[in-house]
């Protein structure tokens, strides 16, 4: 079987952004007042759930109460007679377009199916739904896939048997995890169908932008003739905690709500229950992964075999991060070949993020080897750091060949992390340190590459306005990363404007002008490029105009400066004797570099040009940019250069099994921190989410019925402020990223790396490996032989 990871089409190499070494005025500065800050702090920010079209009807859909069941018969007469009910849609509707969106079988508990009630109020819709009488055909179900699934070698690199033969030692272990997302904003969708166009606002709506495949004629069941994307008007509401989620599901909810709005000729808000929301925002699947690792006594890993078994989805990339992050030559991943057909669990989707399995694998492999050898795990990491089987010499040459600074990212991150945690004083062999209160002390290490997120594509534009300010035009669905402020920092940097003279707000109509990617994951690295390039163009346009007094049309030559019969003067150049390269712009002032007193404001230039050219309507300075760098996952020849290193100190109570996080250190080489506060926020935010998952986040199902027992925020344990310890965040800036100014992605890193870190930390404390996440007290007590 072909190597699914390495045989992808090669993408062009990308060089380092030479601007990484410039003197920055706005980018990278702290204290920029974030653009969404006031709305979010005051609560005036409007989210999809707060958004209601005038005249809205409310819809609720039935949840399947069984792990697997279909409807034998259904009586909706009482619901139809309930005052205030406006429409009842059943799975057996004669219109195939309607029936297609309402399944008659639920293949997991909580599956939305069967019947939809549309009513004047949400309360009426909910009450009427409870009046529907259903006779169920309860079917057999399966929660866990069989062990003898058909497998394929989704990664097969080198010679795995040869690798094991070369090893001094071989270890085997299996880890498992069971966490889901823990949703934020309950799922809801607003659609107002206007016949020739439609408006909508939805949680997770960015997925509609990202994955437009449902607009294609073949998959579109909404309306004969198809739904035109051009006719969609998206209300750019804020998004409650979308850390990646079920793309298919938000599309389905959109389709359903659109049909309801079409039928009732009214706007409709479809609301999901807590359980429906929980099952919508699911994680990248629960599962187990078997590992067999061969290594030499000096810590060099010679072979890794990985057999992942996930409960719903096949996962081909179990060794992705060992490919992209190490010099290990012999790797083999034997993945199930297909989705396990019988899993009666919610569909899965990446939830911060799809690369967690290979990140967990990389870290548990590193730490298991270190523990087996009694080595400092950072030494094992450093020894095996590399790319695609290649080591440090190759990496060094790659950096030099592509214009990157010659810096060893992992060395720098490990050194910074060790200093911050006081490694030499806190590190000890497993089980050797007891705290004064009797608890066992442990320290865990995690590492990985940073996210090479200058991938995907996006478009956007920047325009100068009459008052000398600049506006970024695009559609970027906010998911909390403060992208808008960062883009304005980039624009202000490139244009030479004050930060407050640049602004960006969501653009509702911009179905194609999208500062996107998946806007969360690739954020600054895709969209920052777009803004940067557009602003470079505009800056050149402005300086040329300032020195030559003509309006340059960058798409077709010189613009006319007068009208027939009217005496419109050509503007006098503001700097008649200079060339564009003699000028600079800073703090919204254009000045002569060698004589800063020779200066004019950007506003003066704008006033002059618009008077001369466009007669009170608009300025000529505008630039549209496209950025496209292919698709996700591995990109050969574009190696990940930035690294991260983390420590987590814990105290383990051997009588109760409780783990307390004493201290966390997160060191991320972000290439260039465009917004230091945002970088820190992603570090501690991801870190807490990760530790919370490793510590107490667990889906629990009732074994006999397959019904979820803890689908709420009490029984599913999302960390509070007091559960994950104090965190030091350190940003290393090597400019080794492919983003603007050498930046790289960060949003998904710490949540992935910190999810498994309690494994090595607890092992260091009690000398026993617990690879079954989350590491709850019962597992610690069991590992200690107390139960």
């Amino acid at each position, binding site marked *: 079987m072909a190597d699914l990871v390495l045989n992808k089409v090669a993408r062009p190499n990308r060089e380092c952004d030479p601007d990484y070494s410039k003197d920055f005025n706005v980018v990278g500065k702290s204290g920029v007042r974030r653009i969404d800050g006031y709305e979010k702090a005051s609560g005036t920010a409007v989210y999809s759930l707060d958004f209601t079209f005038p005249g809205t009807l409310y819809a609720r859909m039935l949840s399947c*109460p069984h792990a697997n069941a279909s409807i034998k018969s259904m009586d909706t007469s009482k619901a139809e007679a309930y005052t205030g009910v406006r429409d009842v849609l059943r799975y057996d509707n004669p219109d195939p377009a309607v029936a297609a969106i309402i399944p008659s079988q639920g293949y997991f508990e909580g599956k939305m199916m069967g019947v939809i009630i549309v009513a004047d109020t949400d*309360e009426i819709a909910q*009450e009427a739904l*409870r009046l529907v009488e259903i006779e169920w055909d309860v079917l057999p179900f399966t929660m866990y896939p069989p062990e003898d699934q058909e497998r394929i070698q989704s990664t097969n690199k080198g010679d795995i048997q040869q690798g094991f033969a070369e090893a001094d030692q071989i270890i085997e272990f299996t880890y498992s995890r069971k966490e889901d997302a823990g949703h934020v904003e309950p799922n809801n969708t607003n659609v107002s169908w206007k016949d020739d166009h439609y408006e909508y606002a939805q949680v997770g709506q960015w997925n509609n932008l990202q994955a437009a495949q449902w607009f294609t004629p073949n998959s579109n069941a909404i309306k004969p003739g198809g739904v035109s994307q051009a006719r969609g008007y998206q209300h750019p509401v804020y998004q409650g905690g979308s850390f990646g989620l079920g793309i298919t599901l938000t599309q389905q909810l959109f389709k359903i709500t659109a049909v309801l709005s079409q039928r009732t000729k009214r706007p409709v808000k479809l609301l999901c*229950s*807590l*359980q429906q929301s929980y099952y919508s925002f699911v994680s990248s699947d629960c599962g187990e992964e078997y590992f067999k690792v061969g290594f030499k006594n000096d810590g060099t890993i010679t072979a890794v075999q990985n057999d992942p078994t996930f409960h719903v989805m096949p996962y081909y990339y179990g060794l992705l991060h060992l490919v992209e992050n190490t010099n290990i030559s012999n790797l083999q991943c034997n993945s199930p070949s297909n989705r396990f057909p019988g899993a009666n669990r919610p569909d899965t989707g990446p939830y911060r993020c799809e690369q967690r399995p290979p990140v967990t694998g990389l870290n548990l492999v590193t730490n298991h080897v270190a523990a087996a050898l009694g080595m400092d795990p950072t030494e094992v990491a450093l020894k095996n750091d590399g790319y695609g089987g290649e080591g440090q010499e190759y990496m060094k040459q790659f950096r030099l060949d592509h214009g990157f600074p010659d810096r060893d990212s992992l060395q720098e991150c490990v050194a910074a992390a060790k200093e911050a945690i006081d490694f030499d004083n806190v590190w000890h062999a497993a089980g050797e340190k007891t705290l004064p209160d009797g608890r066992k002390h442990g320290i865990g290490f995690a590492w990985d590459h940073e996210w090479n997120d200058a991938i995907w594509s996006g478009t956007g534009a920047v325009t100068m306005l009459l008052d000398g300010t600049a506006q970024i035009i695009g559609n970027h669905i906010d998911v909390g990363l403060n992208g808008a402020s960062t883009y304005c920092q980039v624009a202000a940097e490139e244009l030479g404007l004050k930060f407050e003279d640049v602004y960006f707000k969501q653009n509702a109509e911009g179905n194609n002008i999208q500062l996107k990617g998946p806007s969360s994951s690739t954020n600054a690295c895709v969209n920052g490029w777009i803004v940067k390039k557009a602003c470079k163009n505009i800056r050149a346009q402005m300086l040329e105009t300032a020195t030559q007094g003509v309006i340059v049309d960058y798409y077709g030559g010189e613009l006319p400066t007068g009208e027939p019969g009217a005496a419109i003067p050509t503007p006098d150049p503001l700097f008649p004797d200079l060339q564009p390269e003699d000028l600079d712009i800073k703090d919204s002032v254009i000045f002569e570099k060698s004589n800063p007193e020779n200066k004019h404001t950007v506003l003066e230039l704008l006033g002059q040009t618009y008077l001369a050219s466009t007669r009170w309507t608009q300025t000529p300075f505008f630039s549209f940019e496209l950025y496209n760098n292919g698709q996700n996952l591995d990109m050969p020849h574009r190696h990940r250069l930035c690294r991260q290193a983390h420590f987590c100190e814990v105290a383990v109570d051997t*009588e*109760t*099994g*409780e783990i307390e996080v004493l201290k966390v250190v997160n060191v991320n080489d972000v290439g260039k921190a465009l917004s230091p506060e945002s970088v820190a926020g992603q570090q501690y935010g991801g870190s807490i989410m990760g530790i919370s998952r490793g510590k*107490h986040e667990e889906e*629990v*199902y*009732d*074994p*006999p*019925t397959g*019904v979820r*027992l*803890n689908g709420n925020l*009490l*029984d599913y*344990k999302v*960390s*509070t*402020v*007091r*559960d994950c310890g104090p965190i030091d965040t350190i940003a290393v800036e090597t400019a080794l990223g492919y983003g603007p100014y050498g930046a790289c992605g960060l949003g998904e890193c710490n949540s992935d790396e910190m999810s498994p870190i309690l494994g090595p930390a607890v092992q260091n404390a009690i000398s026993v490996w617990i690879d079954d996440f989350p590491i*709850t*007290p*019962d*597992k610690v*007590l*069991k590992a200690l032989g*107390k*139960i």
Partner: protein
Amino acid sequence: MKAFDLVKAKSIDEAVSALGSDGTMAIAGGTDLINTLQERVLAEYPKKLVSLKSIPDLDYIREEGGMLKIGALTRLEDIAESELVKEKYACLAEAASRTASPHIRESGTIGGNICQINRCWYFRKTDNRFDCIRKGGGMCYAMMGDNRYHSIFGGVKACIAVNPSDTAPALVALNATIITTKREIAAEDFWDVAIPGSTVLDNDEIVTEIQIPEFSGKSSFIKMALRKSIDFPVVNCATAIADGQARICLNAVYNKPYRATAAEEVVNGNTIDEALAESAGAAAVSGNSAFPANGTNPGSKWKVQIAKTLVKRTILNCK
């Protein structure tokens, strides 16, 4: 939420009278009941709620007649922050301060906390999903399912749901008396009831006051939960020791607060030290019938270990 009628009682008499009719439930802070109604947990949805919050003069903490008196409508946060309670009845202040979350403590009352419905994720599953024995059905789903948070001392009429109150064990340890509109009940007996009840109260009976006798010893409360806030206890324990006599009460281990008399006997009359506390802990859980792990169900044996440890540690805190 589904509609119901609401009586905002202006007096105890009005409340009791209103509670006399069928399908009526009392509501104070509301933090347990509203959740229950929103989730449609109960087989029978109430027709009418009687709000007790509007009854005057039931919100107080005072020393009187050689005892501490706490009005039933006193908010948990006020108990947690009361200097008087913190100083003399430390385990109660600590229990109140560890209940649920700060917001819940600002609304939730001590009366409501001790009257809350027993907890089990099958019983509580949305839309009355499991017709369990506590609801009049034929079986306990937790026995056959995932019972990691359930009773370690067996069932009451085959129901293994637990009493999850944090303040209840403190009240038992402090030998409190619960004053109702009908009677005075020793705290220990207050929850001594078979399913479907969680307390011995009649429907038209409400708690008006909690009385705690003068206490001059030391007391301690420890709660173990997976998170430091919001959660109900996995196990909690209150111990009060005065004049060499101990009262030790665990909760979330049985359908009512579980007074560990065997542990008390170990302590009574003896000097407290590590070994004594250890054996008291062991005594507290002797005879337990915790569920073993089974497949994906980790069982409840871990709770035994925690209960034993909390008994030991609360005793040592009273040294």
